[in-house]
């Protein structure tokens, strides 16, 4: 049964993250109606997604799904790749959402043409992604990549390769961003929380902070004990920050 007074939170997952309510999301599900869908083309072959060639296609798909389902406006959240999808959705139809939470999102190129703003997650070995993505790489969990964790069967790794192929299909060039998205950020006028981990070297915190500065009314919060996956690495702080934000308490973070 859905409680009409409970906030509804749609959380869009990142590349390389296990399906479902991982880390802090499991705890959040006690307090909000949480949905963590698997993006089409991830985890299994998806005929529909074969024809897509941009993150905007994924955003369009989710907006259409929400429209079909109706109901109260959800809080929209996304991490990394999912943050990019969330931004694409918001610039297309922000009236549909109660708020926007972005965790170190890809999608917007902010710096110079020779600055590598996003680590090459489609080239680097899993150990390199972990080293760049975690404050404490030894604590890594909740991720799935080709060959990571070790000892899985071929089918599991085939699914991880399928995920990689889907990311390549959607975001190969320009790499992990779409210049069209930046052009429309100025239209956004939603309560927005941007979260980064101080140790994130996949998308550096400077990038997330700068992005928050481009989003009207956005708050920026940085977790010193986290890398790219604060919902996995510092789940309690993450859950508290998101709950405060979606419940309107907004006790954390500095307005940009």
């Amino acid at each position, binding site marked *: 049964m859905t409680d009409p007074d409970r906030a509804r939170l749609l959380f869009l997952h990142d590349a390389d993250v296990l399906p479902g309510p991982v880390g802090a999301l499991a705890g959040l599900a006690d307090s909000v109606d949480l949905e963590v869908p698997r993006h089409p083309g991830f985890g299994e072959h998806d005929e529909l997604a074969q024809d897509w060639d941009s993150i905007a296609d994924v955003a369009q798909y989710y907006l259409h799904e929400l429209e079909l389902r109706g109901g109260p406006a959800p809080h929209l959240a996304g991490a990394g790749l999912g943050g990019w999808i969330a931004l694409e959705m918001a610039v297309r139809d922000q009236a549909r959402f109660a708020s926007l939470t972005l965790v170190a999102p890809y999608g917007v190129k902010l710096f110079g043409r020779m600055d590598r703003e996003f680590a*090459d997650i*489609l*080239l*680097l*070995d899993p150990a390199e992604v972990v080293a760049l993505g975690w404050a404490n790489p030894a604590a890594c969990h909740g991720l799935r990549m*080709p*060959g990571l964790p070790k000892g899985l069967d*071929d089918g599991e*790794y*085939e*699914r991880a*390769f*399928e995920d*990689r*192929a889907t*990311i*390549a*299909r959607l975001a*190969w*060039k320009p790499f992990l961003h779409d210049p069209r998205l930046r052009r429309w950020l100025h239209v956004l006028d939603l309560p927005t929380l941007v979260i980064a981990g101080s140790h994130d070297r996949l998308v550096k915190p400077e990038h997330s902070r700068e992005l928050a500065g481009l989003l009207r009314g956005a708050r920026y919060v940085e977790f010193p004990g986290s890398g790219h996956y604060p919902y996995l690495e510092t789940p309690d702080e993450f859950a508290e920050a998101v709950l405060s934000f979606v419940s309107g308490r907004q006790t954390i973070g500095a307005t940009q």
Partner: protein
Amino acid sequence: MKLFHFTEMPYPYVPPEAEEAHRGLKYFIPNRFYDPVRGYELYQRYLDEYELADELGFDLMVNEHHQSASTLHVSATLSAATVLSRTRNGRVLVLGTPLPHRESPVRVAEEIAFLDAMSAGRINCGFVRGVQGETFPSNQNPVHNMEMFTEAHDLIVEAWTNHDLFSWEGRHYHYRYVAVWPRPYQQPHPPIWVSGTTRQLVEWTAAHGYTLCNLLGTYPDTAKSFRLYRQTAIAAGQPEPGPDKFAYLALCHVASSEEEARRVGEQLTWYLKQGRLRLGAANPPGYSSTAAAVAALRGKLGEVRRYSFERLVEEGILLVGTPDTVTAQLRRLYDETGVGNVILMNQAGEMTSNQVRDSLSLLAREVLPAVAPLGRQWQDEDTRWRVDRDTQPVETVLASALS
């Protein structure tokens, strides 16, 4: 049997520690390790060798790779133009233009037509998907590699054979007005060659009746790949493919004694050094099936690179020895696979120009005439690869040495 001379034109002067630090000689190695003067000398030397090979009666092959110290050919069509203007007799095989990595198929159609037109039809036109790592220099989406290959091919053939102005709004390529000048000298277009081992590509090549080239496969793997081709061609209603529809590339060195041939020929294995590319580069996302990607993850691909010298000779990948030995290897290759074109990679690493020239001269004197008659009367022969003698089920070939 026709023999082609080929060198990848390597730049052999990169310090080993630089090679180690940059995970090999390809795609990600900074060009500060290239010396312009030594590079000039290498180009002249390699082109002189092409010129000699042509005078000795070989056909010639050029290719291209990018951002690589193991190949200084940067455009197969540029190399072909250079080799054509230095030679008079041999056919120049462009194997090949990596279609998915070139921005404009129309420009490829123009360049090949130009080469063919100005040489009175000395061009064999090879199209390739580009090995996996080429994805990074070109930055073309690996997911679309095969689709771009076939669409670019379709557009190029249309540009050569459709003599009206036409438009093309495809999945990957968009032109409102296409009319390529010049037309190729060979009509309707130069012979098309394709290299590859994946089932999809072999079947596609067979269905079009193009020449299929296997690079550095073992005798049995090459035979399997060619059997798949023959059976697909027959099923598509084509006549039984003869030896001219097949090509094979091997590393080659001959000398007057086995010892001398081995002493020099061992340097050819420079080309087979195990790469240290990341898995993401050796197997970019979506380039091949997820099953093939897992095989790569498990270290099951590129097995050839781990073979010993003796094994490489036994498998026919290294054609090394006296002229009699190499002639026997080529006979065996013909007997087991029915191949009619053999591309000899006569140089690798630091092999000197004199070593290459000596080998070319000996090959021309003793091996070329001995193997030339192979396959001329193939329809009268009772060989194991003839379609009506082939009753085994077709198997897919996994291993490519070249990723």
